[in-house]
């Protein structure tokens, strides 16, 4: 086989590989790589000692990684957005969740909790990919986490402080201004 022929064959294989990759969602979509990084310096958190403890989470992310309380809060507050792939109002609220994720960065964990059933995981991943979701996504096919947070219908937003106390629940999803107001009461930046 000549050099030109080998190059043509390799090009064909590479093109096939690129197309095949394009069929699948990004490897780190909603997985452990999307959990926040190191806590930013100079950030402290106000406590809500009178709030009840947040229900324990012992679940998996969409990539199969285990996820629990310590991954979500304990050193920072967390926003949990309960969602499903068929929930139109969840899609409408996703830009709010994206803005909160961007603006608060690693100071706050923002995670989705998807209540799609076990046989709907492919549709969920496709939907998350279509939405361009950047947050970690907890899969909850048996609605264990949903039940513990009293979610009757998506969307619903929960705010947990850095001590693991359930500060607020917003059935129907949080209004952006109210969510920011609560977060700004909790997240305190040095010099800010």
């Amino acid at each position, binding site marked *: 086989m000549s050099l030109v022929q080998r190059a043509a064959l390799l090009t*064909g294989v590479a093109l096939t590989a690129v197309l095949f990759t394009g069929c699948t969602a990004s490897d780190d979509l909603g997985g452990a790589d999307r959990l926040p990084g190191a806590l930013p310096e100079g950030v402290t958190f106000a406590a809500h000692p009178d709030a009840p403890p947040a229900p324990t989470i012992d679940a998996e992310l969409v990539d199969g990684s285990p996820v629990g309380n310590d991954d979500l809060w304990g050193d920072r507050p967390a926003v949990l957005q309960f969602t499903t792939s068929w929930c139109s109002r969840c899609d409408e609220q996703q830009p709010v969740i994206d803005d909160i994720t961007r603006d608060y960065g690693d100071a706050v964990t923002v995670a989705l909790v998807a209540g799609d059933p076990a046989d709907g995981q492919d549709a969920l991943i496709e939907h998350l990919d279509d939405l361009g979701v950047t947050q970690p996504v907890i899969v909850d096919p048996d609605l264990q986490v949903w039940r513990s947070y009293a979610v009757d*219908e998506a969307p619903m937003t929960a705010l947990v402080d850095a001590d693991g106390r359930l500060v607020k629940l917003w059935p*129907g999803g949080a209004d952006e201004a109210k969510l920011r107001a609560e977060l700004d009461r909790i997240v305190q930046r040095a010099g800010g």
Partner: protein
Amino acid sequence: MTRTPRILSGAATVTFAVALLAGCAAQGGTGSGSGSGSGSGSGSIDVLVRDSNLRVEGEACSGARPNEYIHRGAELVLEHGSDRVSVELPDGEAVRIDDIDYGAAPRIPTACRFRISAPGLEPDLDYTVTIDGHDAGDYRYTPADAAPIAVPPLADPGAILESGDH
């Protein structure tokens, strides 16, 4: 390797790539519901999830616990003998279930109503109904009053007060 097989090999690679691309396009597509019955009826009917969940009236909704399986994209099937009508549910709409004045409360007790077109339904036949594979009782389509398919079923469809427009 002769020249012809090499050409065929290259063509096969390109064909495979195109097939994968086509597969991507198909994967990204969305299905749509349609009636598949052979009857003559073509009116719209409602699926009414009587969950009394607190919602903002008029907002998009899906069934609340324990009816989470009733949502946009779920398949509603009505069967009578060999007749089968299948419809994909659209978004539901929150409709109030009573005439109580809740003042300024934005979220009030509601049912979630899915309005669907069900071509092929024959009047005055008893259909068995399933939604996403869950039994949803029997339904008799009568064009004159077009009672909703209620979940849970109504004891007396003639006495319905909570379907919004009916």
